[in-house]
C-alpha cells in the first residue's frame, strides 16, 4: 500500500526535519508526529507518519526472535 522507511531526525527547522535514512538524507515534513533531533521516524512520500524507538528502528531481528520466544512460552502456559 505504501512504502515507508525508518530514518533518524538529524535536525529540525519549523515543521521540517532533516532525516538520515542511513546514507541518504532528506528534509521531510514532521508536523504529523512529535519528533526532535535524535528521534527515529518512519517516512512516507516526504512525511514522517510515526515515531519509533531506537531499538525498534535498528534491532528488528532481535524483536522477532523475542516474539518467537514469547509465543513458545504462551504455548507452554496454555
Amino acid at each position, binding site marked *: *500500500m505504501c*512504502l515507508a522507511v525508518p530514518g533518524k531526525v538529524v535536525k529540525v527547522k519549523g515543521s521540517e526535519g532533516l532525516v538520515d535514512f542511513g546514507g541518504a538524507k532528506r528534509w521531510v515534513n514532521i508536523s504529523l508526529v512529535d519528533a526532535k533531533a535524535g528521534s527515529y521516524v518512519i517516512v512516507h512520500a*516526504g512525511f514522517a507518519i510515526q515515531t519509533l524507538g531506537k531499538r525498534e*528502528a535498528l534491532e528488528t531481528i532481535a524483536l*522477532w*526472535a523475542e516474539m518467537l520466544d514469547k509465543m513458545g512460552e504462551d504455548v507452554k502456559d496454555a
Partner: protein
Amino acid sequence: MPSEREVAERIVREIKALGQRLRLMHVCGTHQDTLVKHGLQPLLSEAGVHIVQGPGCPVCVTTPREIEEARALALGGASVTAFGDMMNVPGPNGSLFSAREEGADVRIVYSITDAVAMARESPSKRSVFMGVGFETTAPSTAVALLSNPPDNFFILSCHRVVPPALEAIIQMGEVRLDGLIEPGHVSTIIGTRPYVGISKRWKIPQVVAGFEPLDLMMAVLMLARQKSQGRGEVENEYSRVVRPEGNVKALKAMREAFEPCDVAWRGFPTIPGSGMALRPKLAAHDARREFEDVLAPVSEMDFPEPRGCICGEVLRGVVESDECPLFGKACTPEHPVGPCMVSYEGSCNILYKYKGK
C-alpha cells in the same frame, strides 16, 4: 544473535508444526512486493500457506476515469504533478506519460511538498497534484492543503480508505479466506481498532503486518496459530510502529481536509464512503471545481473494461494472476492492458517479473 535466515527457518518450522492449510489475503502492493522480491511464496507454500492479493495499490484501484481526468487537465494546459507510480497507468486514451509525449507538462514528484514548491515557482500557471493513495498518503495531502498553499495549486483527489473495501470483499463472499494480513502503514495512521468490527462480524483472524520479510512471515504464523486455536481476532505484528489508536494528528488533519464520498474502485462496484472528497472550505483548491470546463467531456464518457481484462476478479482475489487469459500474452509489463500489470506493485506485474513468462 540469530540471522534473518535462521529466524525465517524457525518461523517456517513453527507454521508447519501447526499443520494448517491456509488461504490468506493481503490488500497491499508493498506486501506483494515484499512477498515476491524476497521469494517468500515458495517458502510459505511449502508450509501449506497460499496468499492472495486483494485491491491494494493506489495504481491498481485508480479508475480509468481518474486517469482520463488527469490527462485532460495536463492536455488542457495545467501543469500536472504525480507520484512515479501513476505515470504508466493506461486510461482508454493513454497514460500521463503519453500525455507528456504529446507536449503536456507532466512531472514526477517524490512528495506533495515538491509539487507545492513547483506551483510556487510558476504562479501564473495552474498546477494540479494527482492525490492518490490510502490513509497513509492522504494526511500529507491534507497537511499541504491546510497550510495555505498558493492560489494556483489544486488537488485532483483520488484518495481512498481501506476498511470499506475490506468489508466489501468479505461481504461478496466470493473468496474463502482463513485470515487477512492488514497493511502496516495504513494501520500506522488508522490504528488497529477499525478492523475489530470485521473480526467480530465474520470471526476472521486479522494481523497487522510490517514490510520486512520476517514481518510477513511472523504475521502468517500468528494467523496460523489463531486458526489452530479457533480464534478470530485482530493482532498487531507491526507493534514497533503501529499503535492501537494510530496517528491522532494525521487522523485529525484528514478529517479536517476531506469528507467521505462514494467512489468506484477498479474491479469493484461503487463502494459507499470509500472515497475522500475535499471539504467545501477547501473548494478553492479542488481541481474538479476549478477545471469543471476541462473535465466536463470526461464526466460524460463511460469506461468499459478493456476487452478480456479481468483485473477486477484478480483484484477481488477471486482469480489468480496467471489464470487471466491475457497474462503474459496480450498483457505484459511493456504493453499492460489493466492496472494489475502496469503498477510495479500490481500482482500480475510482480508475478510476471519474478516468476518469469
